């Protein structure tokens, strides 16, 4: 999507973040992070290990409470919400894809049950419908229909990750958080997953915040990029611009090191 398309879609950001800061004792997790995310936009967050990417993401998703700052989702003050409201949001409007699928799946529950859970959590009470939707979503993430009653422990890493994605997207969320979704996977498996993600994001018009240390991933998926170092955002802009013409010395280092790989 071009910048122009994005701007004409709406001028109201879906997520507005201001001055977000999270410390662990004396140590900085992330500091003074601000950005807007528009509907249908994919924001990549890159930076070396320990730069604060996961901390930021978990504060945004409500898994941790930041020390300072504001988060507005669709005009609503997230940090002022009751826990009930926030958890409800995270079951309906939001989704969270963990790097390790084991952290985001119920390993003792069938694939169909894993996908159906969010539907049941928001009140679906018709078994046939739930199963139908689960089957449909397994198809969309390229898992064979006859695996619907198998447990994820019988799946390969790539399949588990695709199942986690299906489980997250089944309720039609608007905002998806992803923490290194291609992390532990083989390169060929990564490529297939990225392809799939790209298709889903485009077809569903999802807004995504994706954390990764892999610049190839953001090159493929992200409209916009935020570069973090020591908990702070050192550079942000359109992905191609940042990658092709990095301004900050740290970004230049990141980009050149990926070129060496």
């Amino acid at each position, binding site marked *: 999507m071009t910048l122009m398309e994005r701007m004409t879609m709406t001028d109201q950001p879906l997520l507005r973040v201001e001055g977000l800061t999270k410390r662990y004792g004396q140590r900085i997790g992330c500091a003074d992070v601000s950005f807007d995310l528009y509907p249908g936009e994919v924001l990549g967050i890159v930076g070396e290990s320990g730069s604060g990417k996961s901390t930021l993401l978990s504060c945004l998703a*409500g898994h*941790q409470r930041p020390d300072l700052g504001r988060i507005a989702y669709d005009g609503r003050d997230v940090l002022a919400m009751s826990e009930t409201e926030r958890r409800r949001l995270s079951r309906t409007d939001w989704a969270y894809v963990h790097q*390790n699928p084991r952290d985001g799946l*119920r390993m003792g529950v*069938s694939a169909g049950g894993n996908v159906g859970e969010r539907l*049941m959590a928001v009140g679906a009470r018709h078994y046939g419908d739930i*199963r139908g939707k689960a089957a449909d979503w397994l198809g969309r993430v390229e898992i064979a229909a006859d695996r619907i009653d198998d447990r994820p422990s019988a799946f390969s890493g790539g399949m588990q990750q695709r199942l986690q994605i299906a489980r997250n997207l089944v309720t039609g969320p608007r905002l998806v958080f992803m923490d290194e979704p291609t992390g532990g996977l083989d390169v060929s498996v990564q490529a297939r997953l990225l392809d799939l993600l790209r298709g889903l994001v485009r077809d569903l018009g999802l807004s995504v915040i994706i954390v990764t240390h892999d610049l190839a991933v953001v090159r493929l998926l992200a409209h916009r990029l935020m570069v973090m170092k020591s908990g702070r955002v050192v550079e942000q802009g359109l992905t191609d611009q940042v990658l092709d013409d990095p301004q900050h010395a740290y970004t230049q280092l990141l980009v050149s090191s990926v070129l060496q790989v």
Partner: protein
Amino acid sequence: MTDQAYNFAYLDEQTKRMIRRAILKGIAVPGYQVPFASREMPMPYGWGTGGVQVTAACLVPEDRLKVIDQGADDTTNAVSIRRFFQRTAGVATTEATAEATVIQTRHRIPETPLKAGQILVYQVPIPEPLRFLEPRETETRKMHELEEYGLMHVKLYEDIARHGQIATSYAYPVKVEGRYVMDPSPIPKFDNPKLGNNPAIQLFGAGREQRIYALPPWSRVESLDFDDHPFEASKAAHDCDLCGAGHSYLDEVITDDAGGRMFVCSDTDFCAGRRAKGHRGRLSSEGVAPPPHPSPTRGEGGASLDAMVHVNDPLASSPPRGEGMGVGGADPEGTA
């Protein structure tokens, strides 16, 4: 005759007051698990120490106590609890449901409808209905608080996916007054309809887990299900072979080494009462003396009869606890 070495009903008055406070709180918030400081009782945990403490806190000298285990008054467990209160409280006892003021039970609700003024006390092994799905106590507490019960339906979904129907037949989860999801203890789901709209007070005591919960009279209790797989209070498709009852919960009993079986009411008082009124079943033809009611020696002591007799044993048929369906890592969002 009361043993004077003990306070009335064994527990000291302060402990009983503490338990009564928990009971009252439970009645005020139907289906909510109230923590209480469970006391050491002179019997092992599996023998219903939670129920015994609740009964002890409820008893007054005028009470008439009935104790059943799997519907039977004469199993080791039932007999020993009844004797315990005879000795420590000196209360009258009975096997007749209609005559009892307090009934302590394990795994059954009596067939004879309960009345206003009666108290039914359940022995509960695992009070947390979400435990099997989510082992983290902090998380299950949060789920109750926020009414996040989707996971209960995941369990039912898995049942249907695997068995073609909801296979859960004991400890079938219910929702109380449209609010709390509750484990009714390992009663057969056949008994679930009796939980709701019941004129008696129903109290649930879990000793090891230190929880008390309650259903006040006339509570609204719904068994969880799906629109296209509605709850069914099923039982074996037979009549009682002793009394001919067609609508009582039956135990399947092996009668000989040659595969002979019979179905008998699990509620011994109910069955005997019917026979006293002249009702007869398939194996109690005129002129032939009816066989004595099989009285399996239950109790976690593990009598040898146990395996042989109770084909319907919930502990044998329920899925192993603790296998867990929980999401892997610590995920504060809970639903991941």
